[in-house]
């Protein structure tokens, strides 16, 4: 009797463990997608709101407008996302971007081929990133301070080179990123999509990407595991720098002129997009998909409000509120879910 009772109790435990296993696994998958689900739902709500509030919103041409408008921020944000995942920051994008913008105009006006000019601009950005990386990793100055310094230097240099004068492109064909490729889609959008996909693949499927997450999650553990943390981190800033300079080139293409006054908001907006996308400021978490969703949210709000003729200062307020709302909502879910 007693023997029998025990064996049923045991099999009961085993059965309930088996039953538990499956929902847990499902919970796991849900867990992973929920961060996108949260921000995805958020985006859908915004889309629905604007479609009702503004009849012109839900049109193909407006979708293209939004994509084209966010392409520059998107390109910068991809670099920023990699920097933040690696446990760093890159404020200097706001200096590198205008420098890239005026450099591209100056180079193609010489005249030089678009391809060579693009390579030179990428190199320029990577060089600034190299400087950031070396200062941060070899001298050991905090990334926030380092990139704040290089931001100021970069933005200043852009003015020095141009004497503050906007340089129009002599040959309008050199502003290719603003040209239409097909079905109204411009090359800047294509550039963003390509950069997004490549960075996504790099972060997810390469050893370098794994190392970026590792140094962001626990730099000391990564170092002890034999990862060359200084090298990885420096390369991260080079990527971010190159992308920011390239974003400058895209701006010049769109404006058909190189101006030193562009990109001032890029640093903070890109950080906002990355955080909206679910990254942790402390590093080790987040990714490209979330970041691009964050960029789209920011771009869509700006576009929708512009269509509704809301003055731009109100847009700023709305953007800030959205950021706090989205991040606060995530935090609230964590607290209620009891996860630390």
């Amino acid at each position, binding site marked *: 009797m007693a023997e029998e009772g025990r064996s049923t109790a045991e099999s009961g435990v085993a059965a309930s463990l088996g039953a538990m296993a499956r929902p*847990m696994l499902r919970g*796991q998958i849900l867990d992973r997608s929920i961060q996108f689900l949260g921000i995805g739902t958020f985006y859908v709500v915004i889309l629905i709101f604007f479609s009702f509030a503004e009849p012109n919103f839900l049109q193909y041409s407006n979708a293209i407008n939004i994509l084209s408008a966010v392409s520059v921020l998107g390109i910068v944000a991809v670099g920023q996302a990699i920097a933040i995942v690696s446990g760093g920051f890159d404020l200097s994008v706001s200096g590198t971007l205008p420098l890239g913008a005026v450099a591209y105009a100056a180079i193609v006006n010489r005249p030089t081929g678009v391809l060579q000019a693009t390579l030179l601009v990428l190199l320029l950005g990577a060089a600034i990133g190299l400087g950031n990386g070396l200062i941060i990793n070899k001298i050991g100055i905090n990334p926030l301070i380092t990139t704040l310094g290089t931001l100021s230097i970069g933005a200043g240099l852009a003015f020095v080179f141009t004497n503050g004068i906007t340089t129009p492109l002599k040959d309008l064909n050199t502003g290719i990123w603003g040209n239409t490729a097909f079905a109204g889609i411009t090359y800047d959008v294509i550039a963003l999509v390509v950069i997004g996909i490549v960075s996504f693949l790099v972060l997810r499927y390469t*050893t370098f990407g*794994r190392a970026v*997450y590792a140094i962001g999650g626990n730099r000391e*553990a990564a*170092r*002890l595991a*034999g990862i060359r943390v200084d090298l990885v981190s420096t390369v991260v800033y080079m990527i971010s720098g190159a992308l920011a300079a390239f974003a400058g080139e895209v701006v010049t293409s769109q404006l058909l002129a190189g101006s030193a006054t562009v990109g001032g908001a890029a640093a903070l907006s890109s950080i906002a997009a990355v955080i909206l996308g679910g990254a942790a400021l402390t590093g080790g978490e987040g990714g490209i998909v979330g970041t691009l969703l964050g960029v789209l949210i920011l771009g869509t709000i700006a576009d929708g409000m512009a269509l509704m003729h809301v003055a731009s200062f109100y847009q700023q307020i709305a953007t800030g509120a959205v950021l706090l709302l989205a991040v606060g909502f995530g935090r609230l879910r964590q607290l209620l879910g009891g996860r630390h």
Partner: protein
Amino acid sequence: MTGAPPLLAVSGVSKSYGAYRALTDFDFTVEAGQSVSVIGENGAGKSTLAKILAGAIRPDSGTIALEGEEVHFSTPRDAIKRGVAFIPQELAYLPNLSVADNILVGAWPNRFGITNRRMTVVKATEEARRFGIDLDVARPMARLKLGERQIVEIVKALARRARLMVLDEPTASLSDQESKILFSVLKNLNRQGVGIVYISHRMDEVYRFSDRVDVLRNGVHVASVSPSNTTPAQLIEYMLGQAGEQLPASGEVTAKEPRLSLMGWQAEGVPSLRGVDLEVRSGEIVGVFGLRGAGQELVAEGLAGLHGHIRGDVVVKGRRGRVFGTPRQARRAGISYVPAERKREGLVLSMSIQANLTLLVLRQISRFGIRLATLERRRAAELARRLNIRYRSLDQRTGDLSGGNQQKVLVGSRLASRPTIFVLQEPTRGVDVGARVEIHKFLRELAQGGAAIVLVTSDVEEAVVVSDRLVIMRDGAIVGELAASRKTQAQALALATAA
């Protein structure tokens, strides 16, 4: 004894964490002016007791009375108000402020919120003098030596009118000279009626200092004796009890040449190394045991390439070189290191189990920098199976695992590169008993498979049970070696504590 109630009376206090009973029905008194040592092995319940007295955690049951009046501490602030001061092992102070500011923290002399620097200095000096302590209170805290900072903490407690002081292993990182000064300060406090509870596992200090010794074992109060009529051997017996983990005997070590040798390792500072030589052959586990701060951690970290300042040589497979300067050099020599602090130095908790398991072999699981998903999955699954890691999915966040399973992931990650020399530091600290036994068994299997293993630990049971040969360190030097057949925990402890 007069009828006056004791300064501190603890009765029937219990504390459990889940199914684990950290402290069971604990009774205990301290008179004013008395020094009581509480000793016990790691995990015996000493820290739980200290935290309860300090108000950091609340007991599940039982009462605490101060001078006959029952008290209930729900926060450390309550305990401080009632005159109970806790000096933790890791001091919490404000390094950027002066000694005087630290002593009077939160109660700086002020008028309408404007502090008075001169008054602060005068008052702080007064507080220190009251108990015969000489301190230059104008210096910034960060400039002080560790021992001096501890004394500042004590003065700070006294300034808050502490009547009972609870110290958790205060000498763990002090030099001999600093310890002596600390003891003379404590003795002086005793004379002035302050009660002291001193938590330690250093036998020599217990004898030098306390009026009574209380022994904890697995959360149970097993003895309360006077040091003057108890021998160290008896105390050690109380601490260890009997029973314990049994591992199957390891096979005969056949290799004659050492696979790894340390020659003349020297290092200044705290802890120091004073000429350490060690040889490890294939197929054996050499335990290096010492109390915290005895230098054994330097041996482990030196082998991992974390201490370039150590002077001496390493011979690996007959090739002689200087002590490794970087972790990469150590790894290139074929040494795999399991660090003691798994959360800080070992794992990336935000990453998946799989990512942690393959972190050290990223290059092996990828071609041209691109990870091969199936190969990685296979390697991770194999390691998880060998170490019997319990998980829902290999993609699960490592931070969500239990401590024991996290530790297995850490050991697994260090094993991925199939090292021939394995150096582990405190491999089962903060790990549940089940996982501990599994990790120990696993180490034995590894040795039987031909690996040379260095097990550095401050856990005497682990040291004795797991190692084939046990080396004991004290004050930076090897003070004894116990062969496989003739090692007991009592002997190891006696050597390590200089009892």
